[in-house]
Each structure stands twice: as C-alpha cells, then as structure tokens.
C-alpha cells in the first residue's frame, strides 16, 4: 500500500499538523512516511500545503506532481491541485470559501463542511481533525487506535487535555462527510 496525499489550504488551518498526525499514525502501524511542507514566502503569503506519503515500502520521492488524494481547503488550492489528482483518485474538499466547485469527472469527489461544523462544535481549532476524520472515513488507511497514538505523539503535552475533543472531531468528520461524485469509468 502506498498513499500519496496533498493537503492544501490557508496557513493557520492546521494543514501541516493534520499531515503530521496522519504521518505519526502511520508510524504507529509500522509504515514508512514522508511529510514535506511548503515553507518560506509561500506560507507567509497565506497558503500552506504539505505532501504526505504513507507506504509499506521505502518511499522514493517526497515531492510529487500527481497524487492519490488531494485534500483541498481553499479556492487557491482548488485551482492549483484539482488537476494534480490521479485519474480515479480522490478529491476531498471543504466548501467554505470555495467559489468554483471541482469540475473533473474522472475522479471521486467528497465534501465535508468542516469549517461550519467546527463553529457548531464551538472550537474552530478542531477544524483539521474534522477533515482528518472525513478522510479516514473514505480511506481508512490508518486505524483509529493508531490515530490516537499519533495524536499523543504529535501534540505538545500542554494540549493533551484536548484529546477528547480532537477525537470527537474526528468522529464527527466521519459522520458528516458525503460523496458528491463517483468517477465515470
């Protein structure tokens, strides 16, 4: 199994930390991982993205042109990465701030209204965990048990009281995500 993922959105949405939690979860189940972020002016300009690869085998390139999954959290990222999903691949997006919906017909499109749900749940910072839950519902590539361990490893100890809330957010993401389009074969 190899899963090549791009997660892209605004800086501050938790894009990088979501990737890190995913990567740590995979380590907990003995997989190989790589995590490569955008850094520098690109981030300071407001957009952030990270390439996360999980695999049973040694990972070759940590940077890619096409992906199995694109998790898209703003319009700039939609414009940049919709075309980078492999045919038959997955595009998961949050509709908040999206002005142009995905147009490709040869990919699977799922939607999660995570920003809205985070507001409903009373904590905007769990936004990225709702998205993570949505992704893991569609592709359960890491076990929930290992996600919990991944959270423990990647969240600083002073935030450990937020575990329950993070896990609730992951479960909520699993519940509210829905498929907009299957790919036409």
């Amino acid at each position, binding site marked *: 199994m190899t899963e090549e993922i791009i997660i892209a959105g605004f800086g501050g949405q938790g894009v990088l930390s979501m990737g890190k939690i995913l990567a740590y979860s995979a380590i907990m189940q003995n997989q190989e*991982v790589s995590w490569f972020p955008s*850094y520098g002016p690109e981030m300071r300009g407001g957009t952030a993205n990270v390439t996360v690869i999980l695999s049973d085998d040694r990972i*070759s390139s940590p940077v*890619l042109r096409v992906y199995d999954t694109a998790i898209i959290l703003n319009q700039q990222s939609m414009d940049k990465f919709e075309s980078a999903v492999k045919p038959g691949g997955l595009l998961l997006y949050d509709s908040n701030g999206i002005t142009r919906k995905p147009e490709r017909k040869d990919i699977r499109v799922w939607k999660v209204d995570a920003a809205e749900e985070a507001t409903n749940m009373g904590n905007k910072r769990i936004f990225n965990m709702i998205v993570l839950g949505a992704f893991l519902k569609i592709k359960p590539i890491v076990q929930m048990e290992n996600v919990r361990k991944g959270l423990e490893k990647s969240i600083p100890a002073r935030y450990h009281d937020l575990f329950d809330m993070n896990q609730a957010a992951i479960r909520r993401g699993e519940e509210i995500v829905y498929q907009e389009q299957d790919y036409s074969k």
Partner: protein
Amino acid sequence: MNELKLMKGNEAIAEGAIRAGADAYFGYPITPQSEVMEYLMAERPEKRTGMVVLQAESEVASINMVYGAAGTGKRVMTSSSSPGISLMQEGISYIAGAELPCLIVNVVRGGPGLGTIQPSQADYFQATKGGGHGDYRLIVLAPASVQEMFDFVFLAFDLAFKYRNPAMILSDGLIGQMMEKVELKPQRPRLTEFDQSWVTTGKTPDRERNIITSLDLDPARQEKHNIHLQEKYDRMRKEEVRYEEFMTEDADYLLVAYGSSSRISQKAMQLGREQGYKIGLLRPITLFPFPVEILEELAGRVRGILCVEQSSGQMIEDVRLAVHDQIPVKHFGRMGGMTPSPEEVLETMIDQLIK
C-alpha cells in the same frame, strides 16, 4: 528496537549531534536550517550531555570558534545554509590546512548571492572542489533521508577524526525541512578515546609543544605539508567511497543523482520501469571521495547516463571524468530553488537518451 521519532531533517541533525557525543555547536541562524540550533537550544544539551551550544555573532565567528575548539581535540560542529557557508570559507581553509577534525553542515538553498530559501544543490563545486583557497578537500557526505541526516552526523565525526580533516554534510532545504521516521541510536559518550597526541590543551613535561597553524612561510616545508595532505586525500579516495545502487543489474540507462535528487530520480526510475524502460540509479553518498570506479564499470554496461541535479550541472563534470566519453552523459536540473518532479526526470530521460 531503538526509539522511533517523526523528525525534520534539521532536527535529526541536531539530535544526531547530541547523541553522537558532540562537545560543541557554534552557529548563526539562516533559513532553511534554523531548526538545527532551535532544536539544540530547546533540548538543553548542556543538561543532557554537557554539550555547549552557542549562537555566535556571525558565521565568520562560528567557524573560527569551531577552529579554536577543534584544536583542543573536541567534537565540534557548525551548520548553515549557502550564503552563510560562503562566509565561512576562509575558516574552513584554515581548518583543513591545520588538519583539524570538525563537522560543517550545509543545508543548501538556491543561489547565487542571497538567492532564495528554497532547496538547491548548486553548492556542489564549493563543497567538493575546495571552496576556500588552497589545495584542500573536505570529506563530503550527501544524505538522502532524514534517517541519514541523523546517522551521518556520527559517520562524519568518525571520518573527520580518522583523517583529522573537516567533514561536510551537504544537504538541502528539501531534506532539511521534510519529516520522516527516524530510528534514534543510543547516546554515545561525549568524550571518547582517540589519538590525543596533537591536541593543544596544555604542554606536559613528557612531550614537545604541539603547534596548530595553517601558516608555514618556508615553501619547502609548505610543499611537504601539501604533499602530506594530498596523500591523505588519496587514502580517502581508496578507503571511503560510498554509494548506493538501485536496479543497476539489468539497466540499459542510468540515472546518477545525490541527496534529494536521488529520491526524485528513484521515483522516476520506478515510473520508467512501469513503462518497460530498464532504468537504474546510482546514488553517490560520498561526493568527495567521488565513486569513480563503479561509474567506470556501469558505463561499460549502460547506453547512456542522465545526471539529475538541482543546479545547472556540477556533479556531471565528475561523472564525465569517470565515464571518459564512452557513452552519452546528459544533464537535467532545475535551478534557483525549483524542485524537479519525477515525471520531468523520466520525460527527459526518454527524450534525451532512450528515443
């Protein structure tokens, strides 16, 4: 099983330094390697092992602190990125001339000048052909993973002490900024036994004075010193060459790439194999000494070589020297901080060599 951690390449260098038993780190911040010192400061190595970590006032000061501390026989290091490494060149030349062991880490960014902060491999010439003035060489290791960022700190210190010569880890912003799984080796003692006969820690009555200098105004003695240095570099060429081969047994075409480019090239090789092209990959691990012999051998077996570098083509000169025009050697690279994609590498291989 040793401890597993998800780390950035720069953090792995820092943790590697502590665990390899480094005595001191002197540095000055610069993107994309600032996490090295940030991590060291946060870890309080003075509590963990007694290691000194100091932010100097400049890169010039850092390398001269390394020079001074190395003279006492301590395991000392610095790290920087391209423009900062340029500033250190005078000091590096002095250290090489004075035959002192130390580790210099260059997490390369795009140049020339202040350039950009994105990944690049355009400092190959500087690292492998001298960099500063005079006839000297560094031992140059090129890690291609976060694990190797950690492991090569141990290796670089060992080689630096074995040859009493500065060693360099030549990385780049891609390996420095990415996170991967790292298996952490246990803590190594800070003070280990090695030949202390040359150190300047105070003369004892039972021996002559030790002198550490790169200056000798007598040309005949200076020439003798240079011959001695060259013999040392020749010994490295014989004993320290390291490389990794991927699917070269049946390869018709060969990719040659180091560091982050070798990872990208490995993917290009896999994509090519899926399309039925027999592509192999040679990844030099030591850039000095350069793996000449294996290249000579592979050149007799493959029909063409593509060198992939994030530069205008620097390592390709060493590849061409090794291959002696037996087969075509082409270059593919991106510059100024742009990173090539595996697809681009494969497309170039097909266009330039296979078709």
